[in-house]
């Protein structure tokens, strides 16, 4: 790369190029009918460093989920499955908000193994054992309780978590909302 500063004419040409590309990006975004609505969503970072923990399930996912019924507030794929009957990722993990004490309690009860130090992802590109992926917090997110007694984040918070974890995915959000229970 040359150390010579770009001339003003070169900068102007680049500016026009950027504007043209940006115009295309803008049009692509606006192709999605939900573009404006999704601008109002503040993405929430479920896998926040320092807060997120992951440990392999030592029992079947269903059993762990039920064992944590009073403790966990499920979100992302787990909440989608509970609310709509279908998830959106392949990995059969459990994803939810827990207190640190509840997470440690799950380990003591033998529901999960030793927490892992890396590899945090809800959508890994490789096969791995099912995990409990927990966001540890003493301030629970807004939630609703299902007839089963299990708690899930509110629909609005689920959308925030999806965006904060997977990015803006209008295809996924549209599919998810089509299955939203009335």
């Amino acid at each position, binding site marked *: 790369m040359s150390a010579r500063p770009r*001339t003003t004419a070169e*900068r102007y040409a680049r500016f026009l190029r950027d504007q043209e590309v940006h115009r295309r990006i*803008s049009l692509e975004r606006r192709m999605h009918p939900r*573009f404006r609505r999704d601008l*109002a*969503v*503040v993405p929430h970072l479920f896998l926040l*460093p320092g807060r997120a923990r992951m440990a392999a399930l030592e029992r079947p996912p269903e059993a762990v989920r039920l064992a944590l019924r009073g403790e966990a507030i499920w979100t992302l794929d787990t909440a989608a499955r509970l609310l709509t009957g279908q998830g959106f990722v392949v990995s059969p993990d459990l994803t939810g908000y827990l207190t640190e004490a509840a997470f440690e309690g799950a380990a003591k009860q033998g529901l999960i193994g030793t927490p892992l130090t890396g590899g945090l992802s809800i959508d890994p590109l490789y096969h791995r054992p099912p995990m409990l992926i927990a966001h540890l917090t003493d301030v629970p997110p807004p939630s609703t309780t299902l007839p089963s007694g299990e708690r899930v984040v509110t629909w609005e918070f689920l959308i925030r978590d999806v965006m904060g974890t997977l990015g803006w995915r209008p295809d996924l959000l549209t599919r998810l909302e089509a299955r939203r229970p009335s």
Partner: protein
Amino acid sequence: MLRRINESPLGTRFILGGSSGMYGVSETIPALTEDIDVMVDADWLAAQEDTVLEHMRQLGFDHQSGTPTFTSASGLSLDLVGYSRRDIADRIGGGKELPVMVFADLSRLLSLPGPTRDLPGGGRVLSPATLAAAKLLTIRLEKGSKDKLQALLVIAENAGDDVFLRHLHDLLGAFPVDRVEDAIADAHAAVLAVSADVVAAGPQAAGYAGMHAKLEQGFAILQRLAGRAEARP
């Protein structure tokens, strides 16, 4: 060097802006640049080109011909960025030797109330709301995310300042709705990119987590100011 520029006759004509404008509006938000951007009235520059070149030479700057860039022996690089009080259009302005880009958005922002504030050591800098609006509206493919993130951090840092919030609201209101929508969408994309970064960086990136909380706060305020916020859970 900035102090010397501000003490020179150019001090009243130059406005510190761009990422280097961060030095004038915040002590905590990283400027992420060592180069200096100064805003200048391109029409005045066209008339005073020789004088500006001479003052800059006296200050120890070499001009790179055909560019808006000056460099000093110490390695400092200073770019002139144009605005106009005559028109609101993207174009090349300034002089023959010293041409500068003239930005329509910057010209509009600087024509609105409260565009600058005085620096304690002399000189002027874009006011925090004007700097935030400029960065939100700036279109740069390679470095666009940096602009949006800095804007959101400025907004978060001034979250409790009603004057700032009202000013930013008014500035955004001076632009067409689709431009503001695009600015919010670009900021959205930048926040999402940082989210991915935070996750990829892993637990060692504790600094990222704090920054992300501020970005979330700044983004929520931006939505509210632009009338885009929904009732939150």
